[in-house]
């Protein structure tokens, strides 16, 4: 059953469909939230929030605009960055209070991702690694840290135009290199 069909069933208030979507996507989404937030506990809270959001807002999913997996990735990313920003404010007040050290990176347990997803991940990783370091850097700063192009330019000490050019190049290369992966998502 495709993800889109499962979302339709979620819209019909079918909890089994939600559970199936969770089982399919939670490991990758948790990894994303943890990459942004650093703390596993925060990341798991975001994960729960997002799936509750899906439960209550499945009607907002538009299959013409994105695949389900991408939609979930964008929502998790957005929630995680919101949390990161608000946490930074709190952390400034309560310096390092209750600071939990980031959970160690651990390999996913067997069976947590399907062969299909694993192959896709390996392809994406390979293509990301092929990007020139300076292009990968600006793309990751935008994606994982939620920084604007202007902020990135300030941090890396480069003109805004250069940062934009690098990001444009990185995105175009990924689009070209991941053509078959994108096709599978359409």
């Amino acid at each position, binding site marked *: 059953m495709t993800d889109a069909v499962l979302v339709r069933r979620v819209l019909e*208030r079918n909890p089994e469909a*939600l559970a199936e979507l969770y089982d399919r996507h939670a*490991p990758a989404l*948790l990894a994303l939230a943890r990459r942004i937030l650093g703390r596993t506990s925060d990341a798991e809270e975001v994960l*729960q929030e997002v799936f509750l959001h899906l439960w209550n807002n499945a009607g907002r999913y538009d299959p013409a605009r994105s695949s389900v997996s991408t939609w979930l990735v964008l929502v998790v990313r957005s929630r995680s960055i919101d949390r990161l920003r608000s946490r930074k404010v709190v952390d400034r007040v309560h310096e390092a209070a209750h600071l939990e050290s980031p959970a160690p990176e651990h390999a996913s347990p067997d069976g947590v991702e399907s062969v299909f997803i694993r192959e*896709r*991940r390996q392809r994406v990783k390979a293509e990301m690694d092929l990007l020139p370091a300076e292009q990968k850097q600006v793309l990751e700063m935008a994606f994982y840290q939620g920084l604007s*192009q202007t902020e990135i330019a300030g941090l890396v000490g480069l003109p805004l135009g250069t940062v934009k050019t690098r990001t444009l190049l990185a995105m175009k290369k990924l689009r070209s290199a991941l053509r078959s992966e994108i096709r599978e998502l359409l």
Partner: protein
Amino acid sequence: MKQDLTLEDHTILAALEALEGGTGEPVTPHEPSETAETLARLYTEVLGLVACDLEPSAPRPETRSQLLAAVARESGIHAQPVVDPIPPLPGPLPRAGGEGAPSRPMPSQESESQTAKPRETGPRPVPAVRPVPVPAPLPRVAVAPAVPAAPPSRSAAASRRGSWPLALAASVALVLAGLSGWLVQQRAEQEVTIESLRSELAGERRKAEKALAEAVEARQGVERMRSSFALVTAPAVTISPLRPVEGLGLARGTLFVAPDHQHWYMALHGLPPAAAGRDYQLWWVADEGTVSGGTFDTRPGETLELSSETMPANTRDVMITLETDGGAAAPSSPAILRAAGVYDLS
């Protein structure tokens, strides 16, 4: 950079702005066109794939249980066995379905067991079981297909025979649906390719325009050279060597004046570049006084060529001075180069 932005560039920049805003929404098309929508979709998926780079990590089982419990609370569903694996219940309650059977009755089985009861609507009642602690997840039980206990009756067989056109129609519909999906996908890809080719074409056009401008400039240069050559080889040309007045010992020049005493050509060698804020200025000394012939500057090692179709009437002398940037109304400094005689080659 802005001048060269393509629709694809705009789409990517919109994607980046969406990331900054953090709305979690897919990329919005830059303009209301099919191509823009396709590009927006493609780059939305690129963003989704960026996160695939990460090694997945399994959430704690409690996270799943808590989520599903929250979902059940929100929607008033208390049927926790539906989605969450549960441990076997003790006592006389048997494990649902036994081995190889689903963990709860399938809808058809459920309806069979409730034939005498009115159909329930809304939330199902809470089963009278003890609260279940958060369990370690059990392997999901595969749903076994229902195996008929007896051979199908004749009426069932006849019904099956009668339903094959329906099955065929469904299959054809499925194939058509798949085909149309494939066609839509192909079209989307073609749109992207067209956009890419348009972008390349625009680039090639710009290159061609630049090459044309260079060709025009080169042709003008050739025309100038031809004109100068005709001038310096004219039978009645007048030549005036320009010599340094003082200081600039290396500078030299030659002025060629056509027989009409209007058209002239000058070549200058060894003039160093003017200092910042200064320009060289050419002066004609004629009956009407000292008239400016214009300002110029040089580059190191360059032979400077000047020419014009006009010259003041009855010009008797020519000189070059160094003036403030933009030139002066009259010479304000001593001449650097000056005509040293006039030689008529006629």
